[in-house]
């Protein structure tokens, strides 16, 4: 795929001629024709009939992946943006508001626990409280964006993300440890949606300082846009949308053809994922990773090689699930007229852990880079390049990653209380430290040792090394707080035939 409208290009391996020829032939194979490069297709996609057909095929493909109501909202919004491109951004805001009104995309169950614990479960109308809380978060966001635009030099807006982190942490401590009764429940009603919209708000407040920044209305349209996201904004915020928005009809035609291709690819991967699960778990009886892990925790483990098979299959399933989901979201975003990069791009081709993250979950990596890596890198240890790189990497892959996941799973704090939830986070915290160390080591190693020239050592061996390392790290990538870190180490040792 060409990189001009969006895919993340694969850094080609530095390899010998015979290895390069083989890789080129493999890379050149196309399951889906490159219709976005056919001039007649691009010209036809600019006609009214072409647009209608493109939208029809896209809606049909989308229906294979999503429920009818979601399909309808997405198709109607991208249809409007296709025929009236001058108002594209306002249609995005409209579609996003409809999406927000249709129902919450995040988990409200924590509010139920808190209401019960405070003895006000029956006395409060929780759906109304939830709707009011979401409206309050949107109003808070609008106020914050307006203030940041008017007073960019005011203390909180000089470091807006740090100010948001402090504000959210204080609100969380108040809700979980200080306030009680109806006020406590009210505070939790704000903590939950504020956590869900945290990174959308962060992108918007940072962008509010830009000279060409969007109005509040357009900014709010990027708060979990109608095409989908998690707590990670896809694709980033309003600033990114402005930069990748199609400026003319040919660019829109190419981008929409790419969108259709990406959606078809998502459908193919979805079928591949189903087949993989069928073969691995039904035909070959490989236990799921959860089952394998539980067996070790219960002291009656499956053999070590079976645990390896479970771990590898879980890793591949994760990659497929994330790819299918991300491709669908980005396909919808492209169909709306934005040349966004793919969220997942050939992750198994990564030759370093850092590159794997870039390819596996691009927009999560971008979030960590934008809000943690860059600020640390450009502020601290400027005279010491390696230390500077290591500290910034730790800020992103370590601290940023921890903060992101702790706030994403804020329901654990409501269920368990603040301190037990922090304590239970030890496993994921260890994962963040280990991941940071692995990325730092791979960065330093790349600088120290120039690669050998044989294609096996430059292309094949590093890829297996990355997959092996990531599978090991995955043992600790657990935010559930069900098992202690010692159980996770027991599983790791069992993979090598030690203990259990």
């Amino acid at each position, binding site marked *: 795929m060409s990189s001009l409208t969006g895919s993340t290009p694969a*850094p080609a391996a530095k390899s010998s001629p015979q290895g390069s020829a083989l890789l080129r032939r493999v890379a050149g194979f196309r399951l889906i024709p490159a219709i976005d490069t056919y001039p007649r297709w691009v010209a036809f996609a600019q006609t009214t009939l072409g647009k209608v057909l493109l939208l029809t095929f896209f809606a049909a493909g989308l229906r294979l992946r999503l429920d009818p109501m979601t399909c309808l909202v997405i198709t109607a919004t991208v249809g409007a943006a296709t025929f009236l491109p001058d108002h594209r951004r306002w249609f995005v805001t409209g579609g996003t508001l409809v999406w927000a009104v249709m129902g919450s995309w995040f988990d409200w169950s924590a509010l139920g626990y808190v209401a019960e614990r405070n003895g006000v479960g029956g006395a409060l109308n929780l759906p109304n409280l939830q709707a009011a809380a979401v409206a309050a978060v949107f109003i808070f966001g609008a106020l914050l964006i307006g203030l940041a635009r008017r007073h960019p030099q005011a203390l909180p807006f000089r470091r807006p993300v740090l100010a948001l982190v402090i504000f959210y942490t204080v609100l969380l401590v108040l809700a979980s440890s200080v306030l009680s009764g109806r006020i406590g429940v009210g505070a939790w009603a704000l903590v939950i949606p504020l956590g869900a919209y945290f990174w959308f708000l962060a992108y918007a407040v940072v962008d509010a300082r830009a000279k060409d920044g969007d109005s509040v209305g357009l900014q709010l349209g990027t708060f979990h846009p109608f095409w989908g996201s998690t707590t990670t904004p896809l694709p980033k915020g309003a600033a990114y949308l402005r930069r*990748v928005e199609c400026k003319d009809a040919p660019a829109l035609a190419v981008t929409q053809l790419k969108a259709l291709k990406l959606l078809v690819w998502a459908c193919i991967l979805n079928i591949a994922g189903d087949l993989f699960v069928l073969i691995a778990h039904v035909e070959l009886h490989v236990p799921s990773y959860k089952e394998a892990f539980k067996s070790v925790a219960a002291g009656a483990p499956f053999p070590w090689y079976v645990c390896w098979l479970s771990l590898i299959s879980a890793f591949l399933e994760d990659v497929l699930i994330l790819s299918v989901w991300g491709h669908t979201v980005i396909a919808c975003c492209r169909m709306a007229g934005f040349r966004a990069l793919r969220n997942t791009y050939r992750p198994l081709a990564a030759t370093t852990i850092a590159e794997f993250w870039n390819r596996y979950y691009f927009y999560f990596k971008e979030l960590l880079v934008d809000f943690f890596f860059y600020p640390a890198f450009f502020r601290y240890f400027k005279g010491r390049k390696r230390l500077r790189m290591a500290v910034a990497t730790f800020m992103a892959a370590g601290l940023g990653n921890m903060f992101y996941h702790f706030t994403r799973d804020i329901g654990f704090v409501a269920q368990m209380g603040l301190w037990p939830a922090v304590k239970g986070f030890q496993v994921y915290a260890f994962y963040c430290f280990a991941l940071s160390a692995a990325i730092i080591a791979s960065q330093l190693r790349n600088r120290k040792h120039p690669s050998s020239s044989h294609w096996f050592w430059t292309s094949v061996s590093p890829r297996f090394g990355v997959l092996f390392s990531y599978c090991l790290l995955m043992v600790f990538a657990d935010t559930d707080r069900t098992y202690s870190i010692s159980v996770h180490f027991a599983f790791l040792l069992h993979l090598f035939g030690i203990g259990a």
Partner: protein
Amino acid sequence: MDTRQKLRAYVEKLLNNNGDTREFSDGDSLLLSGRLQSIDAIEIALFLEQEYGIDFSALGFDEVQIDSIDRIASLVEQSGKQIP
């Protein structure tokens, strides 16, 4: 070698390291198009710090500032260096 040529040579080296040998014009997007990654953005920023004394902690860093040769050249120009 003038400043713009020097910038082009450096960016070309980064693209080649990524296996990207396609032509690029001075106005072509490098980062937003995905041809270069965040790690390359860091390399460019380090190069600009070392070669032209640009201080991103004071200026504020945004990948858009270095998204094309034209933009990088304009940044260098603002820092006080002459671009022929």
